[in-house]
């Protein structure tokens, strides 16, 4: 099992993602610099971590989505490579067109960091299968631009296709239909604003994030 974490200038959850991947897979993740043009050979799963890529002085994730490495990720994701983006990673995936919709400024206009209850909307995805009958988890959130937006047609399509994977229980940011995480049609690309990698150790206050990583890793 080979995993990779993409590092942009001012990614800041890259180490956190790598720690989580190593804990689940038993192997160190490859840290891939944004200027690389291709992923290392044999990568089975890619995480695009949280942070403020390129400072996010433009729209969050907009510049990262146009970086050399993301071009290669888009190509390989379209061929079926599992790719997950958390927080800024989710923003980058929408900007890169791998996931529909956009993340706007929170309706409260403030950055918000808190443990957030989530409902698992679909337990049959490659990212949630290990949760079994569990329908509620708590992951930390920490973002300023987490307000998920898409037009009604897109939202209906997402819901119909079982692609809304997580919803907020108590919407913290104004996201349409309480959406916290979605996947693409093929189910290999997944993005969410909350941070599962910050919920993998009892000292984090909970370990609900572990099964998300286990689900995708075991599906490969």
């Amino acid at each position, binding site marked *: 099992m080979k995993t990779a974490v993409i590092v942009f200038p001012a990614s800041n959850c890259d180490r956190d993602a790598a720690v989580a991947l190593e804990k689940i897979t038993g192997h160190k993740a490859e840290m891939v610099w944004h200027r690389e043009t291709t992923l290392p050979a044999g990568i089975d799963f890619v995480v695009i971590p949280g942070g403020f890529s390129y400072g*996010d002085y433009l729209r969050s994730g907009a510049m990262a989505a146009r970086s050399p490495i993301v071009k290669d990720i888009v190509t390989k994701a379209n061929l079926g490579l599992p790719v997950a983006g958390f927080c800024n990673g989710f923003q980058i995936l929408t900007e890169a067109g791998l996931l529909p919709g956009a993340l706007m400024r929170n309706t409260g206009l403030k950055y918000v960091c808190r443990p957030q209850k989530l409902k698992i909307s679909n337990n049959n995805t490659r990212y949630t299968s290990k949760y079994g009958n569990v329908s509620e988890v708590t992951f*930390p959130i*920490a973002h300023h631009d987490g307000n998920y937006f898409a037009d009604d047609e897109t939202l209906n399509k997402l819901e119909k296709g079982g692609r809304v994977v997580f919803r907020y229980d108590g919407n913290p940011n104004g996201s349409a239909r309480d959406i916290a995480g979605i996947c693409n049609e093929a189910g290999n690309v997944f993005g969410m604003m909350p*941070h599962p990698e910050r919920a993998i*150790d009892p*000292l984090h206050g909970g370990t609900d994030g572990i099964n998300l990583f286990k689900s995708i890793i075991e599906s490969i």
Partner: protein
Amino acid sequence: MPRNSKNKPVITPEIVAEHGLSEGEYEIILDRLGREPNINELGIFSVMWSEHCSYKSSRRHLAKFLTKGDKVIQGPGENAGVIDIGDGDAIIFKMESHNHPSYIEPYQGAATGVGGIMRDVFTMGARPIALMNALRFGEPDHPKTKSLVNGVVAGIGGYGNCVGVPTVGGETNFHKGYNGNILVNAMCVGLARTDNVFYSAAKGIGNPIFYVGSKTGRDGIHGATMASAEFDDDSEEKRPTVQVGDPFTEKLLIEACLELMATDAIIAIQDMGAAGLTSSSIEMADKGGVGIELNLDKVPQREPNMTPYEMMLSESQERMLMVIQPGKEQMAFDVFEKWELDVAQIGKTTDTGRLVLKHQRKKVCDIPIAPLADDAPNLDRPYEIPKSLPVISLSDIHETQDYDDALVRIISNPDIASKRWIWEQYDRTVMTDTVDSSQSGGDAAIVRIHGSNKAVAITTDVTPRYVQADPYEGGKQCVAETWRNLTCVGADPIAITDCLNFGNPERPEIMGQLVGAIEGMNEACRAFDYPVVSGNVSLYNETNGQAIPPTPAVGGVGLIPDLTHFATLNGAKEGDTLILLGETTGWLGSSIYLREILRREEGAPPPVDLEAEKRTGDYVRKLIRMRRVNAVHDLSDGGLAITACEMAFAGNIGMSLNASVGIPLHGWLFGEDQGRYLLAVDEHSVNPVISTAKDKGIIAQVVGKVGGDRITAVGGFDVTLQGLREKHEGWLPEFMS
């Protein structure tokens, strides 16, 4: 500005005064140079001898502090203090003020305060792992308060969140004494290896000097001088002296510096903080006993036509200066270019002992370095330590007739009310090592040392009303309270950093507050073997002659050697017994009760018995390590009643307090006697905990029970936990809406 025939400015007495230099100080400059300085040289002397850079009013008093100890690797005098936490790990930390800029421009002032303190820490080779902040605002009704809170909180969050260092705790007070001068004190804690700590002393002759980071602009020119003067009604005009922060560049700078620090390329490194290129180059040269020659044409510049004066005095942020090992220049260029940072070789070390600046092929400054440091003014300002306010007898303090109302008013007053609105705007969990933070309302934040089973505990504290009432006792108290806070989570307190915020030192009573507080703090430091390893002094916090309450903020750091034994205030369970350790006399002088219920701000503050304090704290730590306690919280603002409420909120469980024995009820519930802890323990632990305490000469008594969903005290209040929580949580969001 008057100019001579060569169109050069002439140094007139007005220009000297504008630079904040006294006539006497100017005489020394003339003497050391043997000639009149040019404007660049005058500017350099001016910032180096400003209060902010030279500590001229406080230096001789700061020298009294205990600064050494078994665990101290580096005390005051470097960018930050360094302590040994075992296994080859070092903790590097410091707290610093950014008061004046934050009042003028709250977002940027606070943001650059966070950026500056982080640079002090990673300059020494540490990865920043936690941020804290101690904030003081004016009274809520003051027209500026709300916008200042908004701006400061957004600025702290905007910077720290982007850089990806968790902001894990802090404190926020409101008082009319800060209406004209808010306080923004930021603390950073970093982790390094003891064998890879970096210092600022330049070494060797002819070694290359590198400039790295943001370009130099015209922002913040003379910021250090601005921070060394009082405000008046025109302070808004000082906005251009405030710097602008760029957290993105800071993040790149951290990663790039740590990457280069993993090699042997760096001889010395210093961030450009107050007084920018001037103080960084002079400090490096002075500490290393060498000279420095800089070619200002090589300095990366944001704007065209910058003068040497502007370049040397700019406080543009996110810049570092380093001396590189000859032959390793390319290695340095490669790392900084990888991180897309501006980098330039701008000069070299020399054997002249002089600072020589060249600009457009001309020498624009040539001054000896030693006098800048050695002859810096070291004033013995007259001082009068204010006498303590008189002790108020409990019988002269009216007992409330409505305890429910008193409890609600105290729990929802601005100083005690929940600060959730603030800390939810800070990323507290990035880096995934935060074990406890503001979220629990606990005494100290707990941050794990990455990849290990040990942790640092971090806290900030000061009770300005105590220091105002009695600088010496108040000084003792702020150090003791941080020691107590660290103890509450089971940490061994190691050392402190401090941020001494006072008014105008030219007034003997203000100088007396400073001296009194330092002496009180020092007594506590010595009693606990708890040295000061870093800090800063912020004076002239006055507007139109009105000084702030004396506010020596203390940041304490301790070590939890094993995370299988720690405690917080969360953990009390149904049926637990509440035990109070420490002596209760019902002290209400300078208390929250007196201020909030009776509108009286007076009376001697509670004294701190340092011996009893140490005995009790050592015992609490032992109990935590023996796992005898389920929850621990120290007693501070609002006394036993508020401590019990906070423990109840954290554990989401009710508390019932017993009747008072021998002390009037208002003193029993709201008295602020020092050196006390509330413990929640299993029933079977009650007897051993109390009997061992008695053997050790510690007063211990059962004061109540845990359980249910109400907060009650026999003969006093009886309210629902939920209702009280709503009051506690409600004040700040409502104020800010």
